[in-house]
C-alpha cells in the first residue's frame, strides 16, 4: 500500500458526556480520493475538525502529511486546504478579493498573488466572475470559489466537508469533475458525504463511519470484493433457446457458482451468472458465448451498488 497521508490512531473526542468520535482510526493513502461516508451525526465533521487543528482530540493521535496535529498545527495547516460544510460569506467582497485575502493569510507575497488568482479562477472556471461580489454568486459557484480558496497555498491534502451538499445536479457534477481533476494534479482528496452516488462515481477509497467509529475502510475494489463474494453478470438474450444454451454452456465453466434464469423484461430473456473469478475469466465467458453463436443482446456486469453495501455494514445507529 502506498504511503499514508492522513492517519489517525484511536481518535476520541468528547463534548462533556457526549462522545462524538469514539476511537476512530483512519488511513488515507497519498493520492487517493477518499470518501468519508456515514449518517448524519456519525462524527464526520468532528473528525475533520480535529484533522484541521480546529479542535483538539480528547485522546488519540492524528498525523497529516507526517505532521502531528497536536504538536505541529502550523505545519499541518500548511499541508491542508479545508472547506467546511457551510460557506462562510464575507459580504462586501469581490471574488478576486476573496482569494487575495486568503492568499495573503497564507503568506503568499503580493507580487505572486495576481497570477495565482488568475490561475485559480481559471481552474474552477470562474474567470468571468472575477470582479463580481461573492454573495451574488450561485451556490455552485460559491462552492467552486471555496474550492479555489483551499488551493491557494498549494496544499497536498484537501479536506472537504460535504462539498456537494445542497447543490443542484449540474453543479454537483461540476464539483465532482473538479475533484477528479485535482486528484490528477496529485492532490489527496478526503471528503465527507452522505451521498453514495458521489462516492461510487469518483472515489478510490472509502471509509464508513457510524456512531464515531470506523466500521469499514479500504480501497473501493477491496471493499467490493470483501462485501460481495461473487460478481454478477447479466446476459440479455433474444430467445428462450438461447437461455437454455447459456445454462448448459456455463454449468461446467470454472468459477461459475450459479446460473439462474431471471424474469423476462420487455420481452427479453435474461440470465444471471454468479462468477467468482477475475477479469480474464469474465472475458473468457463472453468469448465462449460468442463462439457458441448464442443470440446475445447484452452482456453486463452488475456492480452491486454501494447502497446495498452501505446498508449491509451500517446498523443505523446514530450515537
Amino acid at each position, binding site marked *: 500500500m502506498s504511503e499514508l497521508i492522513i492517519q489517525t490512531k484511536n481518535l476520541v473526542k468528547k463534548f462533556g458526556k457526549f462522545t462524538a468520535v469514539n476511537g476512530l482510526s483512519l488511513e488515507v493513502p497519498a493520492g487517493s480520493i477518499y470518501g468519508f461516508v456515514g449518517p448524519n451525526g456519525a462524527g464526520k465533521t468532528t473528525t475533520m475538525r480535529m484533522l484541521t487543528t480546529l479542535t483538539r482530540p480528547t485522546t488519540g493521535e492524528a498525523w497529516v502529511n507526517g505532521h502531528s496535529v497536536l*504538536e*505541529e*498545527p502550523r505545519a499541518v495547516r500548511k499541508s*491542508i486546504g479545508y472547506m467546511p460544510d457551510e460557506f462562510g460569506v*464575507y459580504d462586501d467582497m469581490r471574488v478576486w478579493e476573496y482569494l487575495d485575502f486568503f492568499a495573503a*493569510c497564507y503568506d503568499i507575497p503580493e507580487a505572486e498573488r495576481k497570477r495565482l488568482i488568475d490561475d485559480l479562477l481559471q481552474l474552477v472556471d470562474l474567470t468571468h466572475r472575477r470582479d463580481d461580489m461573492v454573495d451574488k454568486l450561485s451556490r455552485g459557484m460559491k462552492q467552486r470559489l471555496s474550492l479555489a480558496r483551499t488551493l491557494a497555498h498549494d496544499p497536498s491534502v484537501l479536506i472537504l466537508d460535504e462539498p456537494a451538499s445542497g447543490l443542484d445536479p449540474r453543479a454537483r457534477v461540476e464539483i465532482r469533475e473538479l475533484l477528479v481533476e485535482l486528484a490528477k494534479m496529485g492532490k489527496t482528496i478526503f471528503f465527507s458525504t452522505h451521498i453514495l452516488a458521489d462516492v461510487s462515481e469518483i472515489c478510490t477509497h472509502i471509509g464508513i463511519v457510524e456512531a464515531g467509529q470506523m466500521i469499514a475502510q479500504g480501497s473501493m475494489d477491496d471493499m467490493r470484493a470483501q462485501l460481495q463474494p461473487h460478481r454478477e453478470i447479466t446476459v440479455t438474450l433474444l430467445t428462450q433457446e438461447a437461455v437454455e444454451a447459456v445454462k448448459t454452456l456455463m454449468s461446467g465453466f470454472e468459477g461459475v457458482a450459479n446460473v439462474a434464469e431471471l424474469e423476462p423484461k420487455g420481452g427479453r430473456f435474461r440470465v444471471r451468472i454468479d462468477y467468482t473469478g477475475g477479469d480474464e475469466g469474465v472475458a473468457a465467458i463472453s468469448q465462449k458465448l460468442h463462439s457458441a453463436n448464442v443470440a446475445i443482446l447484452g452482456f453486463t456486469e452488475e456492480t452491486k451498488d454501494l447502497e446495498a453495501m452501505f446498508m449491509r455494514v451500517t446498523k443505523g445507529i446514530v450515537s
Partner: protein
Amino acid sequence: MTAIAEALSPRDTHLADAARWLRRGALLNGVIALITLLLGILAAARIIPFETLRAGLLFNYAGSADTALAIMILLALINVSFMLVLTVGVLAREIWTFPVLWLLAVANIGLLFALGWLVAGLNAVLCAWLGVRLVRELSSLRVNPVMIKELRGRMRGVRAFAVITVYLGLMSGFAALIYLVYAAGNRASGSAAAGEIGRVLFLGIVGIELLLIIFIAPAFTAGAITGERERQTYDLLRTTLLSTPSFVIGKLESALGYILLLLLAAIPLQSIAFLFGGVTEAELVLSFIILTVTAVALGTVGIYFSSTLARTLNASVRAYSAILAVMFVAPVVLGVVLRLFSNLFSNQGSLLFSPVMETVFKYADLLLTSINPIATGLTSQQLLINQNVLGFYQFTLASNGSTIPLVAPWISFAVLYLALSAALIVFTIRSTRETEL
C-alpha cells in the same frame, strides 16, 4: 489552550525574539518608573535630597526637581506603552513596526540629549539594536491582510461616503445652531465677543465629536470577532497561517483607521472657530489627541468584549455598559465622595487638615479627572487659558504654602487610556486563542 511548542521557522524565531526583547524593554521601563516613584517618595520624606536625584537622572533639565521626577515617570510610562504596542505589532508582523521602532530610538536619543535622561540612552540602544536586527526580516513584515480586507469592504460604494457626509452634515448643523442661538442671545444683551463665540463653537463641535466617537468606536469593534464567528468565517481563518495577533491587530487597525478618517474630516469644521478667534492651535491639537486616545481605548474595549462573548449583540451591550460605568458613573460618584471628604478635611482647624491630606486629595482629583475625557478636556483647556500651562506645573498647597508637581490631565489621561488599551489588546489576543478549542 496548552502552549504548543511547535518548532518555528527561523524567520518566526527572529520575530519572536525581537518581540521578547521589546517586552523586556517595556518591563524594564515599568520597573524604572516604579523606582523613580519610590525615589520621589523617599525624597519627599527628606531621606535623600531631591537635587541629587535630578542631577543624577535628568541632568539637563533646568526646572524644579520634583517636576523632573514626574517627567521621568511619564517618559518611562510612554516608553512602556510604545514597547508593548511594538511587541504585539512585531508578533503580528506589521510593517509599521519598523519605522515606529526607529522613531522610538530617535526620540529616545533626542530625550537623552535634550533632558539628559539616562534611561533614554538605554532605550535608544535597545530600539536601534532591534531595528538593525529587523532589517533582515523586513521581507516578512507586511501590511495586515485582515485590515486590507476590512477596509476594502468598509470603503466600498456609497456607504462610507454617505456616513462621512451625514457625520459632517450633523456637526455643521449643530455648529450653525450653536452660532445662531449664541448670536441671538448676545443680540438681546447687546454685546458679543467674537472670541467667546469661537470658543463655544469649538467646545460644541468637539463635544459632539466625542459623543459620536463614544457611540461609534465600540460599535465598530464589538462585532469584529463575534461577527466572524457568526458568519462562520472564523474557522476558515483559523486553518490558514494567519496568527491571532495579526487577526486582532488587523481588525483594530481597520476600525480605528476609519474613525481617524472621521476625526481628520472634522478638523476643518473645528477650525471655523479660528475665524472668530479665542481658540489656540494648542487647543486644537489637544482636542485631537483626546479624541484619538478615546477612540483607541473604546475600540479596544469593544474588541475585548467581542473576543470573550459569543454574540455581537451581547458584546455591544457589555462594551457600552462597561464604558458608561467606568468613564462616567464611577468618576461622578467618586468625585462627589471626594469632594465631600476634602471639604470635611480641609476646613481650617480640622485635625486632618494637613499638607499630606491635601496632596492626596489633589492627586486623587487628577486621577478622577483623567478617567473621563470630557473632564480631561475641560480641565486641560482651563489650565491652558488661565495659567498658560500645557504640561507640568507647580501647585501651591493651601495648608502650608509648599508646592507639589502636577500634570495637565490630558497627559495622565493619555497614559492611563493607552496603558488600558495595551492591556486589553493583550487580553483580547489571549482570550481569542483560548476560545479556539
